[in-house]
């Protein structure tokens, strides 16, 4: 219904659109002139491709450079962070509406404790106290260091350089825990927004409570939570830049390094803004596609 209306409407330029577009162009040109008259800055965009991919002048080989590594690191954090945060959020969200008092207490404590601490403080607490006690016990770093061949390549592709794997896991843990607290509340709200009648209807046909949750309530709740979840996901991408404090070289920190070294600060920051925009905008598009798909499935 909604999609057919959207498709049927054709776009036509009317005189008001033309005037508005013209005005925007004039304002942009004016700002550009003012800026270039007062600012002495030699633009040199070659810094961006140079630090994205480096060509060895002797052998002619190309390899990924600092900015590209930064993009990978941010994508890795985004991917794993989303996955873990969604799992924690889903479990905790269900606990929030559970009939079991203990589960409600646990999830409520988690949400309030995490949401009301500044993320930087949380990073420091988890990295310096929790993970420096737990990680050596788990022996992940030692195990990763002695791997070789395909397994090692796989680990490096999914978690970054072996030497910093503990830092990466700690950063990931903090990011996931922090964002999952918001996910929890979004999912709780989604579950509670499903009308009471749905629960009663499920119960009246003899389904046990968990099956009502699984087959009746959850599908509706998930569909309603997709827009706010997507918003929180986009925050996750942008919050991931905090992990530079614990030695992870994400996009922001790599960009800072290049800007300091080359002094081409504007080009680098504009480029980084564009990359974040592309990542976040793709997430918005995926969420919109999911939303449409799920609403079709439910009808």
């Amino acid at each position, binding site marked *: 219904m909604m999609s057919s209306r959207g498709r049927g409407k054709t776009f036509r330029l009317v005189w008001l659109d033309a005037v508005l577009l013209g005005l925007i162009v004039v304002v942009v040109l004016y700002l550009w002139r003012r800026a270039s008259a*007062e*600012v*002495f*800055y030699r633009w*040199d965009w*070659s*810094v961006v491709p*140079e*630090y994205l991919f*480096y060509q*060895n002048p002797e052998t002619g080989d190309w390899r990924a*450079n*600092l900015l590209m*590594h930064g993009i990978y690191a941010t994508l890795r954090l985004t991917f794993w962070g989303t996955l873990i945060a969604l799992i924690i959020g889903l479990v905790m969200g269900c606990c929030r509406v559970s009939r079991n008092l203990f589960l409600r207490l646990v999830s409520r404590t988690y949400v309030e404790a995490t949401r009301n601490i500044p993320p930087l403080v949380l990073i*420091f607490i988890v*990295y*310096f106290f929790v993970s*420096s006690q737990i990680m050596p016990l788990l022996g992940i770093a030692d195990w990763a260091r002695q791997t070789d061949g395909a397994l090692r390549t796989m680990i490096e592709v999914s978690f970054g350089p072996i*030497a*910093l794997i503990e*830092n990466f896991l700690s950063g990931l843990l903090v990011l996931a825990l922090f964002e999952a607290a918001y996910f929890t509340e979004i999912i709780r709200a989604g579950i509670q927004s499903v009308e009471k009648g749905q629960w009663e209807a499920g119960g009246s046909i003899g389904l046990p409570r968990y099956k009502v949750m699984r087959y009746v309530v959850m599908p509706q709740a998930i569909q309603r939570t997709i827009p706010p979840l997507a918003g929180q996901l986009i925050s996750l991408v942008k919050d991931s830049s905090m992990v*530079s*404090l*614990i*030695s992870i*070289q994400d996009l922001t*920190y790599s960009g*800072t*390094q*290049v*800007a*300091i*070294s*080359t*002094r*081409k*600060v504007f080009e680098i920051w504009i480029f980084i803004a564009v990359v974040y925009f592309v990542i976040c905008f793709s997430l918005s598009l995926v969420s919109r596609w999911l939303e449409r798909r799920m609403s079709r499935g439910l009808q």
Partner: protein
Amino acid sequence: MNKTKRTLVSLIAGVVLIGMTGAAWAQNTGTNLASESVIEIIKKRGVLRIGLDFFVPWAMRAKNGDFVGFEIDVGTRVAKDMGVEVEFIPTAWDGIIPALMSGKFDVVIAGMSITPERHLRINFSEPYASSGMLIAANSKNVPGLTRASDFNKPNITIGAKRGTTGVDSAQKQAPLAKLRQYDEEVVGMQDAINGTIDAYFSSSPVPERAVASSEGRLYLPVKETFDGSLESFAMRKGDPDAIVFFNNWIRLRKHDGWLKERHDYWFIGNDWSDQVDVK
């Protein structure tokens, strides 16, 4: 009665037990200090882990992504002299001292100046470098000045990087001037070029490099550096072996001229600029 007695016995047993552990500890302290020193850990691991952040020309990223700079030369040489591999761990400046304190790396070699506040939390080695302030001033706004105190006027605006010795120096030399603090040095210098601020205080050689590439929009009012500071290796407290080792390493490399030669290459010469400059 019986109950009181039992309580008393267990109390005494507890005290004795604690006392014994204490004595055992005291006995082990001497040997533990040597074997738990970070120097032993580095030797066993075969890798020296160095924490650093990026400042021109202390540590930078070359066009091929490699670490380059004075700091990098020093760190690589220390590791070579110890017979171990070197691992540089870039960490944002705000996180560098906490990370050192919790053992994420063995030593910080990052152009860190000795300050009493920092020294209360960590140990510093003997200084391996010293640096001083210079000013890059806007040629149109404030022409013809020759001393740092010439900037001490209420109608002058000075820029400096937050949390650095540049801020301290600006406040000391020109307390009447307005001070604007920047998170990024490049941005502050850009403001000085545009004339948004009148001068920018920073450690040498940042001002000289900015003046050289500004096509006359900036000039150096003061030729000699002032408000000097001392840079040292930073390490965790309570490790006498580490501090002795690094102190003697620095003394030796000062004495044989290696440190001075490297320092002059990065701070006085400009042969390295094509490693990082795009053009």
